[in-house]
């Protein structure tokens, strides 16, 4: 006698892949690190949207945040580059193959200190990719020094006070031409997921600054990037639910007015207004909102700004549809007649 055990059907997404296909190696970051939560959201988003892992390339710089791409999307190519220069490497790769969905993950040291120049130029060029800043205001891997996003007056574990004002990466991105700017908190699963999904379908550069507390060096009283501080001060701008065009998600349509931003591929970003009539297509009000929140000591989260139609760098460069990386010799080496013509001109 034998009993037949029917295994439960595997749960798969719209392209037939399991969530396992989207996971990476086991994290080596500290238990409870906000970065791990972000990695989990990335796994969920790509799984839920049914994106082919081979279609994605991950990029990072140096630091705790930059280690994390090893911990998600194990079937996607990854490139852990040098400190602060993730944008250049990602740009090069995307120029080589603009069909790649680029996912950059950096930290606040990477982006706001050594790499602020590259960050600003990436924004200015609107290189089509997702640019996640895992922002904890501290250098974790070198054991707890202030970064350029550490708040004025915040205190290190050693008691050292930060006497310089912080860079606001969202405000910088807004000012210098970013086409998608959002802020979230690593502990806010629902919001972060919705933002990541919106970023995935945005055709240009999407900047998401995620406040991601460092449990070891910056999660204590006196730190403005700690869990307890965030829980008390986070002010969601609006609740977002992202509806991809290829998957029917039932969402709870919020009461009251709904503002829709149509993204390039026809998918829609739905923003529920909370206490303000917030329009994410207005750069000036976005900057003002950030300033106001800063003045009130609050962290404003949500989609601050979206400009879905602005041409991407790939469009500006007028690249052919076929990836440059795999063009055949016939398309990249001109004929002998061309060489003869050039030689004749030089005689």
């Amino acid at each position, binding site marked *: 006698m034998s009993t037949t055990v029917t295994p439960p059907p595997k749960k798969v997404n719209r392209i037939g892949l399991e969530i396992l296909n989207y996971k990476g190696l086991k994290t080596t970051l500290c238990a409870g690190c906000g970065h791990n939560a972000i990695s989990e959201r990335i796994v969920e988003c790509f799984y839920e949207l049914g994106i082919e892992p081979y279609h994605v390339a991950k990029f990072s710089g140096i630091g705790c945040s930059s280690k994390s791409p090893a911990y998600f999307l194990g079937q996607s190519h990854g490139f852990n580059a040098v400190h602060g220069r993730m944008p250049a490497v990602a740009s090069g790769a995307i120029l*080589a193959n603009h069909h790649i969905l680029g996912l950059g993950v950096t930290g606040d040291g990477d982006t706001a200190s050594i790499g602020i120049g590259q960050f600003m130029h990436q924004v200015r060029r609107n290189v089509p990719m997702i640019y996640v800043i895992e922002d904890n205001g501290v250098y974790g891997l070198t054991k707890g020094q202030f970064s350029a996003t550490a708040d004025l007056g915040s205190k290190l574990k050693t008691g050292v006070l930060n006497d310089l004002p912080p860079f606001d990466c969202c405000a910088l991105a807004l000012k210098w031409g970013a086409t998608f700017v959002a802020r979230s908190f690593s502990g806010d699963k629902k919001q972060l997921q919705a933002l990541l999904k919106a970023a995935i379908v945005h055709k240009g550069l999407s900047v998401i600054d995620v406040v991601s507390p460092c449990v070891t060096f910056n999660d204590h009283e006196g730190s403005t990037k700690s869990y307890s501080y965030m829980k008390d001060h986070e002010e969601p701008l609006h609740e977002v639910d992202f509806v991809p065009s290829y998957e029917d998600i039932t969402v709870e349509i919020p009461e009251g007015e709904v503002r829709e931003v149509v993204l390039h591929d026809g998918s829609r970003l739905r923003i529920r207004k909370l206490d303000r009539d917030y329009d994410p297509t207005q750069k000036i009000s976005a900057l003002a909102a950030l300033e106001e929140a800063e003045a009130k000591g609050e962290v404003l989260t949500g989609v601050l700004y979206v400009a879905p139609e602005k041409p991407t760098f790939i469009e500006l460069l007028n690249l052919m549809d076929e990836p440059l990386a795999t063009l055949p010799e016939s398309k990249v080496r001109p004929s002998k007649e061309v060489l003869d013509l*050039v030689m004749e001109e030089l005689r």
Partner: protein
Amino acid sequence: MSTVEVSPAEPRSDEASRPVINDFSIQVATVNGSGSQTANTVLMRSIFQMGIPVSGKNMFPSNIAGLPTWFTIRASKHGYIGRKKEVDFLVAMNPETAREDVMSLDSGAAVVYDEPLKLNALRSDLHFYPVPFDKLVAPVCPEAKLRKLVRNMIYDGVVANLLSIDMQEIRKALVKQFGKKKAKAAELNWGAAQAGYDYAAKTFTKRDPFRVERMNETAGKIIIDGNSASALGCLFAGVTVVTWYPITPSSSLVETLIAYMKRFRIDPETGKASFAVVQAEDELASIGMAIGAGWAGARSMTATAGPGISLMAEFIGLGYYAEIPAVIFDVERVGPSTGLPTRTAQGDLLSCALLSHGDTKHPMFFPCSPEECFTMAQDAFNLAERFQTPVFVMTDLDLGMNNWMSDPFPYPTTPIDRGKVLSAEDLEKLGGFARYRDVDGDGVGYRTIPGTRHPAAAYFTRGSGHNDRAGYSEREDDYMNNMDRLALKFETMRTHVPPPVAEYNDRARIGLIAVGTSHHAVEESRDQLRNEYEIETSYLRPKAYPFNAELVEFIRRHDRVYVVDQNRDAQLLGLMRLELEPEDIARLRSLRYYGGLPLDARTVTDEVIRQEGK
């Protein structure tokens, strides 16, 4: 008819009776920004059109306008195209340098000068030809603001008359220079040249011995600068991603490349580009993009000079360790630091060979001519992809920015080599791959590029320690195995880079070794050593680093070997020292020049003679 010959002893009547034909150098001294470039190019080209081997070298300041600049044109019936140290025929247009320019001439030289400078009072052993440029320019150029530019063309006419350059060749060169679109400008300049010619014809009695005579040595040849030649090499190498940051003397390489790409690399049907060019925010970004693009499968490159090389160090180390192809053109200029940005050197050999921290070493190509810029650009891309590593093409300001006579470039005869890249089909057959495993015994693993549609295609690229499956590792054995494999890869390259050019002379006890533009001085110096000192020499010119086995062979066949360096610290010799046996090193002698001008034969000859104790 008058000539302002101030000569008490008149020692040159002799010389005049023995004309010097097609073997002299003309130097034009002007002020930067005065528009002398056109006049100089036309003069050089007209000599070239008369079939006489010619070379032109621009010595210019790091400045847009107002500082002294010198352009030297050398005509050589022997075909020598290196710099000639002595100036035979001076055109002194710059009041600030005129005195020093005249005082540094050898006796018997000729001087065309702006009459108000009264240079004839300075020396009595030269041939002076004063020209009232301002008086001559007014009638041929009614528009006063253009006179400054057209004025220079007058000396072309004067020089043409004095050197017997055919005025029709001047006209032809002018038309070539201005093109059909600027016919008016060409006419205006032609008028000025004629005015100069006529003035000289009716005013001067020719006393100096220098003149040209038609030859047939330039038929079919082209005139091109090395940067343009490198650009064409990249174009035909199939470059797809070009990232750069402007820096003298490399900028014109990319600017020329952009112009050619726009002409020849836009799909005629779709109007879309098969290339991407990005002027980056700095050299950190330009090399970063090149590395990113190379990683993702593009043929990527950047061009820079010394300061850019310093900035790129960290990324080049990543490229070496993570094994990513990219081609870097280093158009060398004088360092350290800002140095002399508009002077030439071979001062980056050691820094490029070993660029970045830790144990790193990088292949380099050493083109000596535009034709080699063209062919080696293609070799460099193939090597970079075959060996999955950054590759340097070491040119210099002399080669890159000066105009050279060259044979037309050959169309590539071999297909583009994309190296060991696994496709989805390959992965399906293999079931998977280990990125950094030496499967073939040559030190080079197989790679995949992002976007390869297979679950086993992905790997994680990192500059941190890794094992042969590209996994993070700090293990001693993983690290050492990886470093040893990288060393093996470098050894394998020795037989894949172009072999050196060797010229053995059975009677030679001494040998010369040089790379790049030193070649032209060395070639001429070998003739000087033979003709003037009866010293026979052999010559080895490595075309690439790592050096091929013939280097040791060459050294062992000679008692003493002079290694020619255009830098203070004997960097080429230093590179050899790193890998040679002590008994081979003992045969090496260093011959160095580092003054910022293109190396000349006389400097080489004099130094060999000094060290030989003759």
